């Protein structure tokens, strides 16, 4: 049986891991390659590296980091952050990334999704969507949730699927950093509307939140950062409790 995936997310700035609370007030949580190795041995199913650097050298720093991770880690990993062209993706995949995630660049240029899917295959193209509710409607946001767009979450999600995305990473900006649970109602609707896997992100605080996002949110995978980085939740404990709730996991 296909298992539900547990995905630690490592936010990267200038080659180091950071995790923001609501994407502001960043704290250092260690060396990315060392952390990746620890997580793969601890039973993580996959890793996501999200680069939030804004320097001139960021592309080179990131591609070197991807190479170091690929050398060390024996589970799949996704790389995102500032990816805006076929060339960007080519370098990352050649250096050993399994998937890439695109976010703002896909909103600005939706054709990018078609182009990437055609060139590299849907299976390695994740589209990340950040959204929050404004007047009861889920609106897609850019720049780490700061800038609203005119896009409705569900319409945009359907469009990215049609354009060839292999998977959607949905972060609720209303839940991110709150540790009060995932956006399960919106997640369940995404899973019902679409026929590609959905990764839940934003709001993980305890093990029950993961149980809920798989049961109520119908998520295929759940992503979290600080609860893992600061050892508030051990992946092994998490998976054992998911199994106790009849949620299929790899143990």
């Amino acid at each position, binding site marked *: 049986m296909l298992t539900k995936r547990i995905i630690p997310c490592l936010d990267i700035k200038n080659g180091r891991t950071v995790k923001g609370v609501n994407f502001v007030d960043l704290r250092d949580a260690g060396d990315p390659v060392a952390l990746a190795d620890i997580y793969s041995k601890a039973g993580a199913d996959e890793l996501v590296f999200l680069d939030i650097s804004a320097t001139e050298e960021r592309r080179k720093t990131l591609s070197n980091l991807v190479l170091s991770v690929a050398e060390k880690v024996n589970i799949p990993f996704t790389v995102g952050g500032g990816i805006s062209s076929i060339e960007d993706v080519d370098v990352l995949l050649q250096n050993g990334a399994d998937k890439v995630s695109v976010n703002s660049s896909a909103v600005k240029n939706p054709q990018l999704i078609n182009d990437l899917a055609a060139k590299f295959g849907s*299976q390695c193209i994740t589209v990340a969507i950040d959204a929050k509710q404004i007047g009861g409607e889920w609106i897609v946001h850019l720049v780490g949730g700061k800038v609203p767009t005119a896009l409705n979450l569900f319409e945009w999600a359907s469009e990215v699927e049609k354009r060839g995305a292999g998977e959607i990473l949905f972060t609720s900006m209303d839940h991110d950093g709150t540790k009060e649970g995932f956006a399960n109602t919106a997640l369940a609707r995404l899973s019902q509307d679409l026929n590609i896997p959905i990764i839940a992100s934003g709001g993980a605080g305890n093990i029950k939140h993961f149980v809920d996002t798989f049961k109520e949110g119908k998520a295929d995978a759940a992503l979290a950062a600080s609860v893992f980085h600061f050892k508030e939740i051990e992946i092994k404990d998490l998976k054992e409790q998911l199994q106790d709730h009849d949620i299929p996991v790899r143990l």
Partner: protein
Amino acid sequence: MRIIIIDYGAGNIQSIKFAIQRLGYEAILSNDPKEIKAADKVIFPGVGEASSAMRKLKDSGLDTLISQLKQPVLGICLGMQLMCNHTEEGDTKGLGIFDVDVVRFNSGVKVPQIGWNQVEALKTALFDGIAEKEHIYLVHSYYAPIVKETVARTMYGVEYSTALHKDNFYGTQFHPEKSSVVGEKILMNFLSIKY
């Protein structure tokens, strides 16, 4: 031991090279027919869309070479699919090594399948020491149905082949290089096959 990873511009070859490195061997990336023919073990990777990968393979003149190889050959993911008769993806004619047609998942499951699933009914030395129902990592939209060459089965809406074997040819739909310690053991088993 000379291990060649066929480099035809359609694969996550770096990950396979690193996985073999972690096992204590060095793999060489090559598209040189002479070098490939002289290898002890050949790995045929593949990621992406089938028809464009097949085109690249033909452009490099390697399409006829692969089916003539006598040493152990391991096709991974799309590599395995291209070793079959045909794949529905891009209506692509394959190398015809495995007598099976690859088709798209179409049974109420999410496509692509992404993640860790289980292998069962394991056969051949590829799975020596691997327990039934071990988890392996998969990411794919098309699958090979069960045929006589099937040596591992997986359930995803339908039961299908996650590994195929015929003579010196092996294929895995899953990514051993990304399947943690289980995958490393399977890769090691392949490298240990006598030639």
